[in-house]
C-alpha cells in the first residue's frame, strides 16, 4: 500500500532532508567549519578517524548496556516492591523523586571518589540515571489494576500474590517495555556524562579530546555516532516491546 510505503520511507526522507538543509545552510551562509561543520566534513572525519570512533563507541556502548541492564533488574524489582504495598509506595516515592531530581553530573565526582575514574563510574551513572522511569512505570502498572477485577479475584479467595501473578505483572509489562525505550536513551546520557568528566575512554572522552584540539568535525562525528547508537538501541527496545506486548497495541490512533 502506498501509505504504508510512505510510512516506511518517511524516516530516511526526513533524515536526508535534515542533512541536505544543514549542508546547504553551511555553504550558503559560509558558516566556518570550526563553528558548525557541514555533514560532508563530519563524514570525512568519520572516515579519517574511523578506528578511534569505532573503539570508543564500542566502549560507550558496553558501559551503557551494563548500566542499563542493572537498571532493568533493579528497576523491575523496586517497581514490583513499590507497587506491592501502598505504605512502601508512600515511603519510597518522595525519596525517589528527590533522588531523580539530583543532576547526575553532580554525582559523578562522588563515584570517582569511591571507585576511581573510568569504567565503574560510567556504568553506575548510566544505571542511576535510567532506573527511575522503569520503577515508576512498573509501579504505575500495578497501581492501576481495576478494583472490580481485584474484587472478582478476592471473592474467589485469591491471595495478593495470586492477583499479582495473574493480573498485576502481565498488565504491567506494556508499561515496563515502554519504559525501556526511555531508559536506554537516558543510559547513554549517563555514561557519556561520566566519560566526559572522568574517563580515558568512550565517546564522551573522545569528544573532549577533540574539543581540546579544536577538531570540531570530530566532535560532531562523536555526536552522530552517539545518535546512531541511541537510535539502534531504541529501535531494538521498540521491537522487543511490540513482540512482548502485542495485545496492548491495538490502537489505530497514530496510524494515519
Amino acid at each position, binding site marked *: 500500500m502506498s501509505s504504508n510505503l510512505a510510512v516506511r520511507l518517511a524516516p530516511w526522507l526526513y533524515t536526508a532532508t535534515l542533512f541536505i538543509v544543514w549542508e546547504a545552510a553551511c555553504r550558503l551562509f559560509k558558516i566556518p567549519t570550526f563553528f558548525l561543520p557541514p555533514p560532508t566534513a563530519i563524514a570525512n572525519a568519520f572516515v579519517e578517524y574511523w578506528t578511534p570512533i569505532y573503539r570508543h563507541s564500542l566502549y560507550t556502548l558496553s558501559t551503557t548496556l551494563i548500566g542499563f541492564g542493572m537498571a532493568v533488574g533493579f528497576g523491575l524489582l523496586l517497581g514490583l516492591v513499590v507497587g506491592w504495598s501502598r505504605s512502601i509506595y508512600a515511603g519510597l516515592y518522595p525519596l525517589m523523586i528527590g533522588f531523580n531530581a539530583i543532576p547526575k553530573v553532580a554525582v559523578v565526582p562522588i563515584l570517582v571518589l569511591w571507585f576511581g575514574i573510568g569504567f565503574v563510574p560510567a556504568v553506575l551513572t548510566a544505571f542511576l540515571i535510567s532506573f527511575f522511569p522503569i520503577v515508576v512505570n512498573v509501579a504505575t502498572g500495578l497501581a492501576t489494576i481495576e478494583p472490580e477485577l481485584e474484587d472478582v479475584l*478476592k*471473592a*474467589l479467595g485469591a491471595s495478593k500474590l*495470586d492477583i499479582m501473578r*495473574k493480573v498485576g505483572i502481565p498488565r504491567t509489562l506494556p508499561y515496563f517495555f515502554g519504559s525501556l525505550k526511555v531508559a536506554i536513551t537516558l543510559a547513554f546520557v549517563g555514561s557519556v556524562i561520566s566519560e566526559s568528566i572522568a574517563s580515558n575512554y568512550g565517546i564522551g572522552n573522545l569528544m573532549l579530546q577533540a574539543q581540546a584540539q579544536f577538531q570540531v568535525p570530530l566532535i560532531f562525528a562523536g555526536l552522530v555516532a552517539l545518535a546512531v547508537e541511541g537510535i539502534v538501541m531504541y529501535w531494538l527496545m521498540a521491537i522487543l516491546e511490540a513482540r512482548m506486548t502485542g495485545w496492548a497495541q491495538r490502537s489505530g490512533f497514530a496510524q494515519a
Partner: protein
Amino acid sequence: MSAFITLDGVSHAYGGLTTAPAVEGLSIAIEEGEFAAVVGPSGCGKSTLMKLATGLQFPFKGSVKVAGEMVTKPVKIAGMAFQAPTLLPWRTTLENLLLPLEIVEPHRSEMRRRRVEYAARAENLLTSVGLRGQGEKYPWELSGGMQQRTSLCRALIHEPKLLMLDEPFGALDAFTREELWCVIRDLHAARKITICLVTHDLREAVFLADRVFVMSARPGRVLVERKIDLPRPRDLDVTFTPEFQDIVQEMRSHIVRARQ
C-alpha cells in the same frame, strides 16, 4: 432454617467510624436458590451491600452470614460480575474463563491434569450464552454484549453457589440487555444457584427476580421488600402485561419516596 445470605442490622463506613456511613441498620435475608434484586437510588450503598455479603468489606456494626457461617474473610463460593466486563486483554476469551479455576481449589491444583476437561466446560458455558466457538477470540475482538456474556461465564465457571451481579447490564443497549435477561433467567432456572442482582432498572428487577428489595437513600437500608409472583418461566412478553407494569409502577413510587 436460616436464610442463605443474612445481613442483620449492618452498618458500614468506608473511612472509619468518624465518616458518614454508606449503609446503616441494613438487614436483608436471601433464601438459597432465590433470585433477589436490589434497587435504590444511586449512591445508596447497593455495591456496598454486595461487598459486605462477599466479605470484601466488613461492617463496624451488625453481622453478615453466608451459607450458615459468619463472614470474616472473602467468601470463596461467590462468582461476581460488574458493569464493566473487566476481562484480561492478554488472554483469549477461553483463557479468561479459566482464570477462576486457576485460583479456586480444588481446580487450582488439578489445572494441569484436567485442562482439557476444563476447556470443554468453558466451551459449554460459552455455548449456553450464545458464544459458541468464540473462545479463541480476544476480548477486544468481541462486542460489548459479548464481553458481558463472557464476564458472566467467568463468574459461573467454578460453579459457585452464589452469583453476585452489580449492574451487569448497565452499559448495554436495550436489545442486548433484554437478550441477556433471558440468558440469566435460563441460567438461574437450569442451575440451583442463588442470585443477587443490583440494578437501577426496575423492569429488569421485576422481570428477573423472585423478590425485589428497595433501598433508601444514603445511608442505605432496606425500605420495602416485594415478592414478585409472576409465574415462571417468564417470557419477555410478560413485561407488556398490566400486572407487570403495575408492579413496576409500584416500585417506582417506592423509589421516588426513597429519594426524598
